[in-house]
């Protein structure tokens, strides 16, 4: 029934029930950044704001350091995570570029050239061969 071999896809973290559980409080924190007053309060004193949420130490550090991929790994859902980038006055493409390890410009250029080919990204074994 469940083809749940999605750990085999390289370069992504699937937001499943297990990851949703791990990221529950992290996402509830990110969700609050929809409101301007909360964004201001967060930027004014990030540690103090985060103290109001039951994050793990690893999640807290990753938020403070804007470790985008690590946040995905620790259970952030990308749509909620984007609200953190927006809070920083950054674009979605900026956040995506940081996740891929290139500059925002390089990322935008790659998309203008047609985006990233799936070749080499279908499975971990295909990735290694590349």
């Amino acid at each position, binding site marked *: 029934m469940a083809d749940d071999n999605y750990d085999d896809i*390289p370069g992504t973290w699937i937001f499943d029930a297990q990851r949703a559980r791990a990221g529950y409080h992290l996402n509830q924190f990110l969700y609050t950044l929809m409101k301007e007053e909360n964004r201001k309060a967060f930027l004014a004193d990030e540690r103090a704001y985060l103290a109001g949420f039951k994050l793990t130490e690893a999640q807290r550090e990753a938020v403070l350091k804007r470790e985008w991929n690590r946040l995905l790994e620790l259970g952030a859902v990308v749509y909620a995570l984007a609200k953190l980038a927006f809070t920083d006055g950054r674009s*979605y*493409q900026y956040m995506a570029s940081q996740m891929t390890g290139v500059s925002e410009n390089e990322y935008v250029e790659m998309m203008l050239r047609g985006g990233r080919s799936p070749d080499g990204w279908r499975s971990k074994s295909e990735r290694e061969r590349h």
Partner: protein
Amino acid sequence: MARIVAGVGTSHTPAIGAAVDNGKAGQPYWQPLFKGYEPAKEWLAKTRPDVLIIVYNDHVNAFDFKMIPTFALGCAEEFPIADEGWGPRPVPVVKGYPELAGHLVQSLVLDEFDMTIVNEMPVDHGLTVPLTLLCGSPPHWPCRVIPLAVNVVQYPAPTGRRCYHLGQAIRRAVESWQEDLKVVVFGTGGMSHQIQGPRAGLTNPAFDKAFLDDLSRDPERLTRIAPLEYMREAGAEAIELVMWLLMRGALGPKVAEVYRFYHVPASSTAVGNIILECR
């Protein structure tokens, strides 16, 4: 009798809405995209549907993590525009059709689809960007809208097969409504895209083309695409394409493709648009 006369498949990339809202639609980056949507816009104006059933997904705007419904049908009088973090989009409020939506829920539950009834819900770019693309920027949307929100955010999304069957059940439900109404169904999201992780930016035009082709030629083949295959071939967020299958299921066995447009990129996504008329 109410009738579903056609279906529209379209991406709902938020950057498209932002381009319109910030007056950037004429810029070289965006101009080809909006030009590509002109014929679809004209088609909708000419078709003059009474009701749109818009199949879309909420992106953690209406629903937080307390409750995640697989299929949520909007039964409200109206749906306010969600504030996704920078104020609501400056577009008209979306007017619902509670009587018909209530009938749909009733019919679908008895037909063994486990719907969630939603009586209050803001709608996000997933629903409003398709309206902007197909209707432009009028002072009021030209017809009533029934939102059908599908969970594609927390894995697992419903399978393509399940969505297709729900579409078929929606067709039966609409046809058992006494009023004389012309209904068009929107399937939104996609096409290929991956918007997170080291793999972000993945785009697969070959996959997208085959998907567009088979919407009219062999939709049954599309219902057999496994969730994992969407993710492998076309990006983690390409799973949104199951919502196009829901639309396709609602059109009956035979359709004619009357328009197609495909474009890369809008932000991190491939953009597709198709119009299928019921035959």
